[in-house]
């Protein structure tokens, strides 16, 4: 492998990770914002604090890096058993802890408990979505494989 293609490969590898982190940051930001909005509406307010929103996006972005670089590339899309289940709980605790420090839910303990459970559910949903996506992909892959082998047989 030449120096240029090696550099290109490192760049592509970095870019793939970065895109993954940003995609997850957007996904979790949207989910947290939804919970936050519901909380605000139930509390009788139709306004969202822009500082809270900035904190949310920063937190979700940082958590993406934490998952990749500190939690041995923890990907909720892979599986949620064993070590990954522990990381799911850990990440939910971190999200809840930061939300408590930043006073997103006015230090209302029950809301924080609900928020922690909500984050766990979000992780489980992400896992199920990725699992279903892989199953569909598998179906297409095997159909393409059979078609390839059929074409080969016909050409022989």
């Amino acid at each position, binding site marked *: 492998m030449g120096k240029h293609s090696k550099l290109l*490969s490192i760049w592509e590898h970095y870019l*793939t990770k970065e895109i993954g982190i940003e995609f997850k940051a957007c996904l979790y930001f949207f989910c947290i914002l939804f919970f936050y909005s519901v909380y605000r509406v139930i509390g009788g307010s139709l306004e969202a604090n822009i500082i809270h929103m900035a904190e949310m996006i920063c937190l979700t972005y940082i958590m993406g890096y934490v998952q990749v670089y500190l939690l041995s590339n923890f*990907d909720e*899309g*892979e599986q949620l058993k064993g070590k990954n289940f522990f990381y799911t709980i850990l990440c939910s605790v971190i999200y809840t802890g930061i939300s408590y420090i930043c006073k997103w839910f006015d230090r209302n303990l029950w809301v924080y408990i609900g928020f922690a459970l909500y984050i766990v559910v979000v992780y489980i949903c992400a896992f199920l979505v*990725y699992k279903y996506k*892989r*199953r569909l*992909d*598998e179906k297409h*892959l*095997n159909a*393409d*494989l059979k*078609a*390839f*082998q059929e*074409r*080969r047989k016909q050409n022989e």
Partner: protein
Amino acid sequence: MKYTIRQITEGEDEMILQYREMTPEIEHILKLLNKTQTKLTGWVGKNLTVLELNRILYIESVDGKTFAYTKEEVFRLDYLLSSLEQILSGINFFRCSKSMIVNIDKVESLKSLPSNRIDATMCNGEHIIISRTYASAFRKRLKGGVYLG
């Protein structure tokens, strides 16, 4: 490119292709040769044996040595993996990782793995992982796109 054609009266027919760099012209010639090539030679112990390409499940490079695996036997090949990739890419073989070339015809089923990797189950039940780097080219190949390695 200069070429010499010489008729011989003794010995085996042989074609030697010398090149400094892989150019589209050389690639084209290799592809033409590939269409007719159906055999490789490989070592089983101390015996040099002719190996039909359609018997090979996959070819692997281990510690700088190249091995071809069939259902029953393992052959040591006197080829570099990169050369084999050039020779075989025009037919049903595919470079699936840094150290492996797989025979697509011998793949029983495919499983999509996280991080865009693919698990190929071979007809003998062995599992081969198509790495992320090669997975998109593999998908393209299955769909009928051209992949020159």
